[in-house]
């Protein structure tokens, strides 16, 4: 920050504009595209934005898992999408175990959903921490690509576990009557699943931010992310801190799995792969390692995806390809993401 005290010659206005544009290019492009769409068809665009925000909350929860793990050990936890899938499967099985069906009274559903949510979060969290123990910890000091390859192996194993568990797409009970209209804002109909996603996700996000920002464990996580060796010298149990990070990421993925089940109403074994890549795109877009960035990235990717689905011919088939293209463009041209922070990758 020494440079700040030295009087800087004023850059010419043209250069300043160019700098601003290149720093904010993602915001400009995305905002511009949205504006054009909005002028073309305001109602549909508003609808897309609403749908995008609500599915984006799910992507944000998964993206946080990628970003937490990448922030601390610089590993793309490729199996994270599968952890999300398993969480979703657990929640669907628990509905049956708890006897929750669409006929159960709303009050009982509301009471029953709490333990189901907690248990599926716990299942995913423990699974993620176990993956770290088995597949990544032995390779802590190996070249960087080795754990990435084991992560892919792990992802395939879990996907096939999912395949054995539910060989065909299974229906999740429509417990919250997800498509039921609740109220309208500017002519956009808000349905129950939108509200449900919001009331589950927002407290979790706040809790996570509090945990990472305010608690002793969060401090240990941030210290380990900055410099694992120095953290170890300061008396931080680095291995346990990394395990805790995986646990946190898994907890969020489990919650995302439950919401996704109630939102989409079907679960199947290969849903984790695409969801994982979409969420990873969100994490990269927000600047990997940046928690708030992952949330914003998730919401934006949700909007991009919903817009592609509703606006393109054969949209639901093209949407993943559109999202992956966004991923490639960001990684190649703007690896720092929306907020332009330096990443260790860049």
């Amino acid at each position, binding site marked *: 920050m020494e440079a700040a005290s030295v009087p800087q010659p004023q850059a010419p206005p043209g250069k300043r504009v160019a700098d601003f544009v290149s720093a904010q290019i993602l915001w400009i492009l995305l905002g511009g595209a949205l504006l054009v769409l909005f002028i073309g068809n305001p109602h549909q665009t508003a609808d897309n934005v609403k749908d995008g925000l609500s599915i984006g909350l799910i992507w944000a929860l998964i993206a946080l898992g990628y970003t937490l793990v990448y922030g601390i050990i610089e*590993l793309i936890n490729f199996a994270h999408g599968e952890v999300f899938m398993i969480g979703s499967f657990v929640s669907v099985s628990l509905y049956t175990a708890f006897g929750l069906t669409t006929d159960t009274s709303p009050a009982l559903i509301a009471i029953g959903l709490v333990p189901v949510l907690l248990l599926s979060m716990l299942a995913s969290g423990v699974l993620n921490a176990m993956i770290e123990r088995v597949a990544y910890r032995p*390779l802590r000091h*190996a070249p960087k690509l080795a754990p990435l390859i084991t992560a892919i192996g792990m992802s395939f194993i879990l996907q*096939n576990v999912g395949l054995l568990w539910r060989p065909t797409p299974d229906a999740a009970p429509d417990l919250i009557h997800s498509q039921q209209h609740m109220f309208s804002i500017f002519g956009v109909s808000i349905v129950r699943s939108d509200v449900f996603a919001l009331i589950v996700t927002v407290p979790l996000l706040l809790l996570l931010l509090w945990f990472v920002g305010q608690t002793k464990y969060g401090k240990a996580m941030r210290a380990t992310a900055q410099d694992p060796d120095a953290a170890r010298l300061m008396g931080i149990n680095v291995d346990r801190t990394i395990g805790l990070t995986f646990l946190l990421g898994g907890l969020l993925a489990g919650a995302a799995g439950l919401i996704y089940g109630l939102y989409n109403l079907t679960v199947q074994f290969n849903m984790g792969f695409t969801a994982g890549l979409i969420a990873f795109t969100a994490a990269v877009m927000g600047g990997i390692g940046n928690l708030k960035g992952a949330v914003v990235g998730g919401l934006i990717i949700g909007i991009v995806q919903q817009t592609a689905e509703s606006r393109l011919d054969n949209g639901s088939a093209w949407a993943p390809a559109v999202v992956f293209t966004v991923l490639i463009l960001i990684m190649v041209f703007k690896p720092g993401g929306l907020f332009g922070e330096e990443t260790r990758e860049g």
Partner: protein
Amino acid sequence: MTAVEDKPRRARQRQRFGIGPAYDRAAGALPGWAWGLIALGAMILYGVIGQDTLGEDFYDASIETLAYVMMALGLNIVVGFAGLLDLGYVAFYAIGAFVAGWFMSGQFENANVHFATSEFARTQPGLHINFFIVIFVAGAFTALWGAILGAPTLRLRGDYLAIVTLAFGEIVPRVFELSTSGPFGIGTLDLSNGRQGITPIDRPWLPVPGLEKVGVIDIRPYYYVVLAMVTLVLFCNFRLRDSRLGRAWIAVREDEVAAAAMGVNLVRVKLWAYAIGAAIGGFAGAFLGVYRNTVNVDQFEFGFSVFVLCMVIIGGMGNIAGVILGAVVLSMINRFVLPQLNGVPDAIGLDFDVTAVSFGIFGFLLLTMMVLRPEGFIPNRRRRIELHEGELEAEGETLVEARA
């Protein structure tokens, strides 16, 4: 620090298990070209008598295996030699297979081009070009795409590069699938028939008397064709490895910055790795498309990229013999061993089909291999030292002394 004291012992243990040293001794007994001729002779002999002695099914599996060997050798150039982790290799398989589909079938009904094709193909509408021209066209076309898809990844390293290639591997088959009315839905040309795929595809044909009936009743000629292709690919692989370009790849793999400082042109060297790796993938892909007589987007899934990557890693990244071994072993496991294991789930009280979870089993192999022996069964010596940096230095073996 007890961990430091353990290291030499652990390194010695690693050296003891595996067939690396034994392989080195055996390979040294005869010059390389002699081993090559012996192997080729044995393969030709198998081609003549194999179908009758070991059965049709095994013969068919051998043809497929040889095609996979080509794929693995191609991926080895990118991953093993140049050290660029490519998770989207299936894209090049898809492009190669589709080139074969376009130029050797009735897909473009309005075109009526025939070039050096069999009597039967001459009567059909569409594009019909001779197989032996199409495979090279497919190779060239995929090489071009390899360079195009590789170009944006040049600034990336490590896992970002892997993810970008993975995304390409997902996008390419989807673009083919959805290009039923022109590329990206622009225009009217149907490039893929959607999910149905392109079928049937012409057979290889040579204008030599006695060989016109290639592949009509007998799959033996396919074997000779693929064997010739593998020989060509293998020859290129050896020559490339020992070339100036090959040494540049290894330098880039070991230390990009140092290589650049020594005057290696990173952009050119990496693009060549992508292009040549892709070309071999397309070459093999075109053959597989013709052999299976169908080109269908369902064949091009992420699992295939990982399957080929698994061959390269299990055999030994960067070691040509290891990669061939890995491809043969995995392909044969996939074809013969997994169906045999169907009794296992029953025995432990579960009920499922082992072949359905084959990718899960390959994932498991990949994981155990990476954790226990990342250098593969027949390791490349330099690669092994790179992967165990620090552990092996105690043995006095360093990168400077080891030959590639």
